[in-house]
């Protein structure tokens, strides 16, 4: 018998997309603003996030989920901030998926949170394919990595909503070409907002927190404060 051709037109990751949609609805209903962080390993995600948690925890209710291949080192570092942190051990999986986030959340009372941060596995390729239900996807680039990273990994930068350049205190020593890095980011994601920080010196963090709170207020006007 002759094979028959059937049109399908379906996203391969439709299951992930569905779970992500349900999560986003849940976050919106609870009025919690959700930020995911992606970067290569060693770009300073955990330090940046720990700093963010410490500062934001003074005035807001926050929590964090951390994806890691095998260890709970990052979760332990984040827990120093005093904020509730849950670990997602991904094992051999190089990225977080929406269902891992759903499972890790369990019965957490989301309506008692203002912000939830999700630290993805350090990887500039795989996380770009998976919607986690977040409101803001933040990509980090450190000054020690080289200014052409956005050109080498255009997809992750293109899917991000905001870019943060970390380790600005090392920019000079690393001979970081700031103009080239900014141009590369604008090329792969025209119009992307770029913030520059040094967690070590504390510079740029106020601007980042102001940006974050403005985004959260725009998403959930009733919950702003």
């Amino acid at each position, binding site marked *: *018998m002759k*094979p*028959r*051709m*059937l*049109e*399908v*037109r*379906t*996203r*391969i*990751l*439709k*299951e*992930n997309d569905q779970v992500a949609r349900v999560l986003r609805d849940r976050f919106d209903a609870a009025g919690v603003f959700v930020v995911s962080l992606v970067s290569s390993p060693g770009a300073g995600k955990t330090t940046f996030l720990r700093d963010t948690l410490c500062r934001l925890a003074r005035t807001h209710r926050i929590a964090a989920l951390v994806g890691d291949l095998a260890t709970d080192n990052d979760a332990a570092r984040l827990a120093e901030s005093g904020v509730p942190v849950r670990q997602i051990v991904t094992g051999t*999986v*190089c*990225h977080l998926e929406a269902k891992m986030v759903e499972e890790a959340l369990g019965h957490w009372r989301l309506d008692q949170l203002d912000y939830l941060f999700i630290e993805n596995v350090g990887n500039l*390729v*795989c996380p*770009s*394919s998976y919607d986690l239900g977040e409101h803001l996807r933040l990509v980090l680039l450190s000054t020690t990595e080289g200014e052409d990273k956005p*050109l080498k990994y*255009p*997809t*992750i930068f*293109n*899917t991000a909503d905001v870019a943060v350049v970390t380790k600005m205190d090392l920019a000079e020593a690393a001979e970081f070409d700031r103009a080239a890095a900014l141009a590369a980011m*604008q*090329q*792969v*994601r*025209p*119009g992307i907002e770029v913030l520059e920080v040094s967690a070590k010196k504390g510079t740029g963090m106020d601007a980042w927190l102001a940006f974050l709170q403005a985004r959260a207020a725009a998403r959930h006007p009733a919950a702003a404060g």
Partner: protein
Amino acid sequence: MHELSIAQSLVELVTERLRAAGGARIASVDVEVGVLSGVVPAALLSAFEPASRQTPLEGAQLRLHEVPVKGHCPTCGAERDAVSVQRIHCAVCDTPLAAVTRGRELDVIAIEVIDEATDA
């Protein structure tokens, strides 16, 4: 490398559609892969073979169709190709594209269904 888990999702999705269509096996699958999908076509092709083993997709041909980036050009007032994946600017006038409209696809577009299991 997340292409193996993508390939597994692909096999599950196609198997589901095959059952719904009342078919026995799959002869071929057509998939659109956007250059901004985060998936490397060659890696997906090599992951498909192990992922499809002992499923109705075993031995099926996987055809990948690469989808270039397109977006809305505010200067041209039209959907335009991007210069490249590294430069999301209008290929005609080099204005930065305002919104990406194509290039993120990771879609099954068609499957070829064999209705009766034939003896090998």
